[in-house]
């Protein structure tokens, strides 16, 4: 089969944290995927450059970040009160508010609403929250067809792939792959791979769906407690289609999405588009409040989702995780993400935010390798519009995971754990440290080659010498030199 006739098979990534392989393992096939690494690097270079230019021009950028962090912290400290206020106002405006304890609860509530509406198809605005609760497969199994309407989500849905980024989910797919998927699944002959042509194909494909499907599902970027308003931020217009044309609208939103007042959008909207897509403002932002007679859906439901968020509130250091406004600036700047893309993280939330959010949503039962999937360079903290100190949380989660693991028999004899305990003992007394250095010098002699370097190390060290040499231990440590110098001086 020639390359042209080959079907594009998008990576079947496992994004269920309960099933995904650990990060170091999941990263391996990705590191060997040249095309994917090229696509990812290109995409994030473009967004990063645009973002940097706009941030440089915004003289009050740091003040905006500080205000956003303060507003979000305030909301989180008063989360119950604000959620109740939102519920009251949204209900007064004609909406129905539901609460979901976890993913299963949310799926059940949504399906019940769909059954009540006798809906057997839904159009969807992109929402990572619905991917988090694995909504689509659940609805499909229950006989409800789901149609993604966001261009990236269509690419993934038709190509049977998984998102690898929270703002540009198909950034790992290139134009010829998109062309092949669209031509095959939309039944279009002679489709060019020019993005313009591909976009036009998507526009035509969806037009009738927008006009005919009476039920839509969305996420929410923000919920406004003061008014009961819901805000969706987008670029393509599919959001506006879904929230204007259907009869029934269901919005699924994490409980941390609430803001106190309408006016707080003046901070968030200035930060979000610049951080997410490197624009001063994204093309379309929509706000609606409950039901407006004569304009838009006449039935509106909000499903407020907990699914582990309330447990994150409890820890002071980790609470700031919930400030996240899902801009993806962190993953765009992350040097690790740049090499691995999103699928290696085994979650719908990849990158730095995924590395702290996913394990916490799973309450550390799964995704324990994610907090270690970072070199702690701090670039993410620098760009986060709501100032989440991601490195600090990564380190704290590492401690929590280690505390959990070190109790288990298996880990007691794990070489890393043995080495860490030994190192601590060695560092506890100078004479022990010095003795260990001497032993290390002697012991490593047979590993040291003629050029004075070690080229191959055992055990934990083998991962070092995968690609690096290590200079042999010098004959004299610094402290031995110093001691000799002191003696010589006397």
């Amino acid at each position, binding site marked *: 089969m020639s390359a042209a006739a080959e079907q594009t098979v998008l990576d079947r990534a496992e994004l269920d944290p309960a099933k995904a392989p650990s990060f170091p393992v999941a990263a391996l096939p990705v590191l060997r995927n040249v095309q994917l690494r090229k696509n990812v690097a290109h995409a994030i270079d473009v967004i990063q450059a645009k973002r940097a230019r706009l941030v440089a021009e915004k003289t009050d950028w740091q003040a905006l970040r500080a205000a956003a962090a303060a507003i979000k912290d305030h909301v989180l400290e008063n989360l119950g009160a604000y959620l109740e206020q939102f519920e009251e106002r949204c209900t007064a405006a004609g909406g129905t508010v539901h609460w979901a304890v976890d993913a299963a609860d949310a799926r059940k509530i949504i399906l019940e609403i769909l059954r009540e509406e006798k809906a057997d198809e839904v159009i969807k605005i992109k929402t990572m929250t619905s991917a988090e609760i694995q909504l689509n497969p659940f609805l499909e199994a229950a006989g409800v067809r789901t149609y993604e309407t966001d261009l990236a989500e269509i690419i993934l849905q038709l190509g049977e792939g998984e998102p690898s980024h929270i703002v540009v989910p198909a950034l790992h797919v290139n134009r010829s792959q998109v062309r092949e998927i669209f031509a095959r699944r939309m039944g279009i002959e002679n489709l060019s791979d020019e993005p313009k042509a591909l976009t036009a194909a998507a526009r035509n494909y969806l037009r009738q769906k927008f006009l005919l499907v009476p039920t839509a599902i969305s996420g929410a970027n923000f919920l406004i407690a003061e008014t009961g308003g819901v805000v969706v931020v987008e670029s393509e217009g599919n959001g506006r289609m879904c929230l204007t044309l259907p009869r029934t609208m269901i919005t699924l939103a994490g409980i941390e999405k609430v803001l106190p007042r309408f006016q707080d959008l003046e901070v968030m909207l200035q930060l979000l588009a610049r951080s997410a897509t490197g624009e001063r403002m994204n093309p379309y932002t929509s706000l609606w409040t409950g039901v407006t007679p004569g304009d838009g859906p006449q039935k509106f439901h909000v499903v407020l989702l907990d699914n582990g968020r309330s447990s994150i509130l409890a820890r002071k250091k980790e609470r700031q995780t919930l400030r996240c406004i899902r801009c993806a600036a962190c993953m765009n700047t992350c040097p690790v993400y740049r090499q*691995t893309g999103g699928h290696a993280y085994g979650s719908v939330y990849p990158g730095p935010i995924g590395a702290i959010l996913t394990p916490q949503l799973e309450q550390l039962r799964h995704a324990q390798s994610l907090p270690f999937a*970072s070199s*702690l360079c*701090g670039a993410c903290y620098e760009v986060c519009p709501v100032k989440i100190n991601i490195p*600090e949380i990564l380190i704290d989660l*590492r401690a929590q995971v280690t505390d959990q693991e070190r109790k288990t028999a298996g880990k007691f004899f794990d070489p890393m754990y043995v080495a860490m305990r030994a190192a601590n003992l060695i560092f506890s007394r100078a004479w022990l440290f010095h003795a260990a250095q001497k032993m290390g010098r002697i012991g490593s002699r047979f590993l040291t080659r003629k050029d004075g370097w070690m080229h191959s190390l055992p055990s934990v060290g083998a991962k070092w010498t995968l690609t690096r040499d290590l*200079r042999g231990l010098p004959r004299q440590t610094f*402290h031995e*030199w110093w001691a000799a110098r002191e003696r010589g001086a006397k």
Partner: protein
Amino acid sequence: MQASLFITCYNDTLFPETGRALVRLLERLGVEVEFRAGQTCCGQMHANTGFRREAFCQAKRLVRLYADAEAVVIPSSSCVAMIRDQYPGLFEELGDEALRKDFAALVPRVYELSEFLIDKLGVEDVGAYFPHRVTYHASCHGLRGLHLGERPFRLLRKVRGLELAPLANLERCCGFGGTFSVKNGEVSSAMLTVKLEDVLATKAEFCTALDNSCLMHLGGGMHRQYAGMKTIHMAQILASTEKEPPEVAG
């Protein structure tokens, strides 16, 4: 002016020449150097790998050891960052108020090398001579943790004979990340390859930094690849003069 040297566990064991150069440099600048024999490690490796209990032990030792030092100079940004950024949280968790007070009193007296030279001694020209083409790698802890900013450049520009070649993508992490380099060895290696592209493109003879940890990773990769560039800690460049050229490892 007296300075107490915290050489760091890995410099003591693997890069003693950095320590020797630092002593030479400081003494040339008229600083009286002392070295407390009881020192071992600041606890960063344990803290960053999740072994917090162990990190406590090492942090306590360090604070007790240096409680009365006039100034502590450390040729490693990551260790200074550990002390400034993580020690406060550790001591708060420990709940030892006396220790926390000792730490709070000590921390203003802890300096990374370039901070000590520029902020404390007020010098940029340390009388160094190093006639080579050099590129500077900004380690993440120095860049974002300590906000060293222009300090390393100001020092390097005053070194006679030194030709400074700028490094592209200066702010991008080299991929060392402590135990990340082995726990995620393959990803670390991919990041190393990308970083070496930029380093080698400078056509410098030496890659320098204020952290031997990054240099161990970069240098280890270049040595494996027979790359024809060496690494050298900035202390060794600054210590080098016509009469006393630096010790450079093969």
